[in-house]
């Protein structure tokens, strides 16, 4: 009788244990194995004066647009901080049919003063003076002088006019 009770309780404990694992699992590990990705993409942040800086290009740019870069500065200290960031835009043009873009070159640069209150986050958007052409690609290098980060690329789609016209026609 005693042995049966112990077995019943053990079974209940095991079921509770497994149920707990199943409930916790999605929060701690991928629900399914992703065989096609080594790791989630996570851009390297820049750190300066207790601030963490991450940067990204605009979501879309069309020929004739000025591309833009946005960076987020998170001040994790209890002090207000201010510093300058050097921002340079690198651009390259993709020639149709060619294997690669021509070599990227600096197409615009500026110095951006940043001031962030203690324990605050500031989002800065800079609009480039460059005018995007067909087949252009842009990325940005954000530098503190000692270290730098770079953004991913943004490019102009090669069929923007046709796509936009189609969208406008369907809207109409």
């Amino acid at each position, binding site marked *: 009788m005693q042995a049966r009770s112990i077995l019943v309780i*053990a079974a209940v404990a095991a079921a509770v244990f497994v149920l707990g694992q199943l409930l916790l699992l999605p929060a701690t590990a991928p629900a399914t194995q992703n065989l096609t990705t080594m*790791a989630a993409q996570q851009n390297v942040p820049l750190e300066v004066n207790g601030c963490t800086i991450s940067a990204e290009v605009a979501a879309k740019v069309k020929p004739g647009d000025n591309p833009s870069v946005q960076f987020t500065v998170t001040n994790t200290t209890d002090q207000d901080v201010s510093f300058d960031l050097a921002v340079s835009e690198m651009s390259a043009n993709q020639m149709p049919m060619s294997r*690669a873009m021509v070599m990227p070159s600096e197409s615009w640069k500026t110095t951006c003063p940043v001031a962030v209150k203690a324990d605050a986050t500031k989002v800065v958007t800079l609009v480039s003076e460059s005018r995007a052409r067909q087949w252009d690609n842009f990325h940005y290098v954000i530098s503190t002088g000692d270290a730098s980060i770079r953004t991913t690329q943004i490019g102009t789609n090669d069929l923007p006019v046709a796509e936009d016209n189609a969208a406008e026609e369907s809207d109409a």
Partner: protein
Amino acid sequence: MRDWRVIAGAIIGLVATGLAVSLAPAPPRPVDALAGAGPTLSDCDGALSELVIHYTAETAALTETPYRQFLAALPAGVTVRVVCGSRDDWRDFRRRCADAAPSVRPLIVEHPITCWSRDRWLALSNGRRTTLLTPAAENGQGSWPRRAGDARVGRDLAAALPEVAHVRSDLYFDGGDCVADRHTAFITPDVTERNVGLSVRDVDELHHRLQAALKRPVVLLDRAPPYHAGMYMMPAGAGRVVVGDPSLAEGVLDEATLAALLPCGVETSVEMQQRFDAVADACRDAGYAVTRMPTIVGTDGRTFLTWVNVIIDQRDDRRTVYLPVFDGAAPLNAAATAIWESLDCEVRPINCTGSYRHFGSLRCLVSVLKRHD
């Protein structure tokens, strides 16, 4: 009495379940996706077994001649997978090239692609299975739908071929940024430029990550000519690397010929020569003997008349070099042939006049999926 039974039962249940859970194989995490993959394929060791080329009717003027000549020159038994964006592209390929090679197999992917197969992935082989390591993103994919389609080809191949797997890296690179032999993978400075401050914090982390992925010692070139490695260097087997040398091409072709071959102008700076020499020095530092090869670089840093952009097949202890040659450059074609022959290689010339002005030659068009010893 009841209390100790409850406690004992709970402990036994938890211990037994914990043991079962810990002994069961854990689901592999994404970072382990390359755990079973082999090292990156050598460029100069082993017999060609299976190749991949891209074909689009739009770029037939670039590829028809090199594909016809290369496919006709391949030994029997080499399978060539022809990735086509559409059935129309495949029909066009068959009309132009298929009679040159009986062992071509189409893969219709139903999305846009370019004709450049080399940069899409790195092949990692454990002898039984090939894993295609594709970059986090393609250069220029935001401005060029065909290039965005290129980024899908690694997965397309894995979906179509049961012995091929696909893993997307979180590093940024082109397949052309790497050349390798059985012992070493050489990586261009462009990979450092593209990744440090974006996907990795520093060069050491990049080096570690690449060695882990490619499963070979990695030499990160810190100074080199611009562009892909296969434009200026190629392992030749037996501990030797062939490295380009602009000085060896100086004065060989007259000015009018050079102007016609490279309308962008020829880069003749000391700085460019030093970049080639730095690659030769890096190879020597890694323990390799170096043979220099005449090379002409355009001022755009992309147009190369290069005779190291080769595909090498090794079988029966003999290497065959499929060598790009160019109309109007006969003396340099001959010099390059002599250099490869001096390395005990048989040379089969492939005319790449139509493609080099679009920044690529033979190796840029052809990827190796499998080799066998």
